[in-house]
């Protein structure tokens, strides 16, 4: 077990190195002169002197391999550099943004797990019932609406409309921003805070909740027919015990996989939700960094996302062993 974990942790190193090196070189393939874009070249022609000074400041005149080496020398000391665009320390930007991403992500995942698994289980247990059919249709429908459309509709229904109708303040949810920063235990919104969190969290969770419900239903149906379930039933256990003690645990394997993947996407690519609700997380900043050629921000924030993704995957894989003791870790990998 320990050696497996160590091996997996070591494997993260080449993944991170390849991913970031790939992005580093990709950056220099992008059309457009970075110095010009830093100086506002997306809007006008830039004075050559200004370009020269920016190039000198950020060492953009050096041969790319030299810049590459410099980049890694800095990065291994956890110095992520200075944003080309606003000259803030990327470590600081990462600190602010990742906290926002994690808080939003935790709640989206919680909604996903609670609602998704509950609905999926219910549909599986009551197969062919109206509830099951509704679940099938609603979950399919929920994953067929562009996320930003859902976001704007929610904003209109739960924030704009109550305000126009003059409803009391507490009935209004918030459309944008982080809120007053009144968190308890890091992630529990207190006081006003929940009104800021709820719409983005629901929006971010919508599609994955639908998928998880479908997955849970499918997985559960499979398990319910399995031989060991029949054995359990024949032993005279009640249906509820059978489902919960034996079924659920076995059905969780693919479900956990999906949740693991969602953790990665929540942190990395929640761009649409972040943009729609002006929630300053990692995803939107990374996308902007590519567009504006802010190399240090792009690489610094992506580094965090790649690391988080790899670690979460490790946890997911470890949890397999808990859900299904038949799985021996380390097997099936690279075999």
């Amino acid at each position, binding site marked *: 077990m320990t050696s497996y974990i160590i091996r997996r942790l070591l494997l993260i190193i080449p993944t991170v190195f390849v991913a970031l090196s790939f992005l580093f070189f990709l950056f220099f393939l992008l059309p457009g002169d970075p110095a010009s*874009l830093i100086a506002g070249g*997306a809007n006008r022609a830039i004075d050559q002197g200004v370009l020269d000074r920016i190039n000198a400041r950020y060492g953009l005149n050096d041969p790319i391999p030299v810049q590459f080496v410099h980049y890694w020398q800095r990065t291994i000391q956890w110095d992520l550099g200075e944003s080309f665009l606003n000259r*803030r320390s990327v470590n600081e930007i990462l600190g602010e943004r990742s906290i926002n991403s994690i808080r939003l992500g935790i709640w989206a995942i919680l909604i996903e797990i609670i609602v998704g698994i509950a609905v999926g289980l219910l549909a599986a247990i009551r197969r062919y019932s109206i509830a099951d059919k509704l679940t099938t249709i609603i979950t399919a429908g929920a994953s067929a609406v562009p996320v930003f459309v859902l976001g704007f509709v929610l904003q209109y229904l739960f924030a704009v409309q109550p305000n126009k109708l003059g409803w009391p303040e507490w009935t209004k949810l918030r459309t944008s921003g982080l809120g007053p920063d009144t968190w308890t235990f890091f992630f529990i919104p207190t006081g006003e805070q929940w009104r800021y969190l709820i719409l983005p969290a629901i929006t971010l969770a919508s599609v994955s909740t639908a998928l998880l419900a479908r997955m849970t239903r499918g997985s559960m149906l499979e398990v319910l027919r399995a031989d060991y379930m029949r054995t359990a039933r024949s032993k005279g256990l009640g249906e509820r015990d059978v489902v919960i003690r034996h079924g659920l645990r076995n059905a969780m394997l693919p479900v956990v996989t999906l949740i693991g993947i969602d953790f990665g996407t929540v942190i990395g690519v929640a761009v649409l939700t972040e943009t729609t609700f002006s929630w300053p997380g990692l995803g939107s900043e990374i996308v902007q960094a590519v567009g504006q050629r802010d190399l240090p921000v792009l690489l610094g924030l992506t580094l965090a996302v790649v690391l988080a993704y790899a670690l979460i995957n490790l946890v997911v894989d470890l949890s397999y062993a808990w859900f299904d003791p038949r799985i021996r870790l380390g097997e099936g990998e690279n075999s």
Partner: protein
Amino acid sequence: MRRQRKGAKLLAIILGLSLVAAACGGDDDDDGDEATQNTAEEAVQGGEFIDLGTFVGDPPEHIDPALNSTLDAYQVVNSLYDGLTDIDASDPENPEIVPQVAESFESNDDATVWTFTIRDGLTFSDGTPVLPSSFERAWNRASDPELAGDYSYLMNFIEGGAERLAGEADTLSGVVADDDAMTLEVTLSAPYSNFDAVAGFQLFFPMPEAVEELDNQADWENGLMIGNGPFMLETERTDQEIVLVPNPEWDGTKYDEAFGLPEQPYLDRLTFRVSADPDTSYNAFEAGEGMTAQIPPGRVEEARSNHDTTLDVHILGSYHFDINMTDPVLGGEDNKLLRQAISQAIDRDEINEAVYEGSREVSTGITPPGIPGFEEGICEYCAYDAEAAQEAFDEWTAAGNEITEPLRVQYNTGAGHENVVAIMIDNLSAIGIDAAEEPIDTETYFTQLADGACTICRAGWFADYPTYDNFMYDLYGSDAANGGNNYSQYSSEKFDDLVAQAKETTDPDEQASLFQEAEGVMLNDDIAAIPLNWYLGDYAYNGDEIANFTQTNFGLIIWETVSLKS
């Protein structure tokens, strides 16, 4: 200066205007008047103001006067600092440069040496005095090649600026500060009669001694930057918001009475909140989360009918298309008829109605109203006249010319220009001119244009500082071709001479007529550009809660005069 907004990312900026007079005296022909009068009657209230309409799209890159180059962040910079001069736009027909932190200023006869006398008794928010050396310090800093702000090239105006920017000198040789006599003497590298306007630009704002204590000058804006303006930072900026509170050291009554400034800003706190998307900003505004919003594209009518707006204010910017004068089909004297046909074929009213819902003003020239020397109706071929366009085109064809492949109408993607171009192409095809759109990525668009890629290309320009020169020399002077902002690659000796003459002329009327003549040469004799419209304000605000919310012609909100209604 750039306007950092998703809908209209354009070049932008402007001089800091802190004259309330502009707010009260101007706009006498529209409903803004009513609001203004109400304000005077109601008791002004302090309180907390949340702005959602300034930072839409991205958080501001910079709020350091030496680094900022966007109009949006200038709203903050201008609240944190006061400059040597400002613009008195109380008569919008005839805006005037007046001293602010300077008590007075004068230049020698050929406009090469300027002397500013600084007011006594002004202080920064840390209590230290504002002295001539504060400006010297700021200018040496802004021209530091290490800092390399987007606008640092403006220091080339000053003698020794080029050397300083190249890292060959430690200070600007043309600046002499005498703190005893309270004078600042500036020697320019070339005669420039509008330097008083430039001197009020953010790059030339003063800096306190505290700035020298920093190891990394770039950190100034990331901490509690100290300024001499009506507001100061309450907390360090984040990507989500910038929070300002009144600067207790500031006293508006120390400036000339003509400014009409209060002793202290009315607002107790001013929060600029960043919205990632214009529609989010607007929804948040409608949900009562803030008091202002930027009007998103396609929702102008909605905003106009439900809220108060600043749509009646002229912003010093032009939206136009340039024509490449070196293009074999379009350029040159021989093809003037074709250029005339194109310009006359375009229905500017329809574009304004369809794309902008009337939120722009159809233009009759490049230089917008509000610029000293502005004259209405300079352009002869800017009015929609399909018949005249048809005639001109037929005449051009009869002379043996033909369009072999569709004329390319270029624009930068993702900024809402595609619909304008669609209508233009439709208009052109109506008189038989074959044209096709050529979208180019924003990241490389202007670089390509500067390098001569323009055929018929969209351009936009907001004044860096309010001078006629900034629209003529910077956009159509032959010095600005090949790498500059002269995308037409327009090169006319007559035009260049007129502009050069105007720059040296100190008499405003004479200067104005020279500039107007130059613009006429470019637009009518040569037809190097197709003006489409001038910008108007784009804030929506809640008039029930806010008193005296006015956007100046220069795009700025004078935050120290904004107050809340009880």
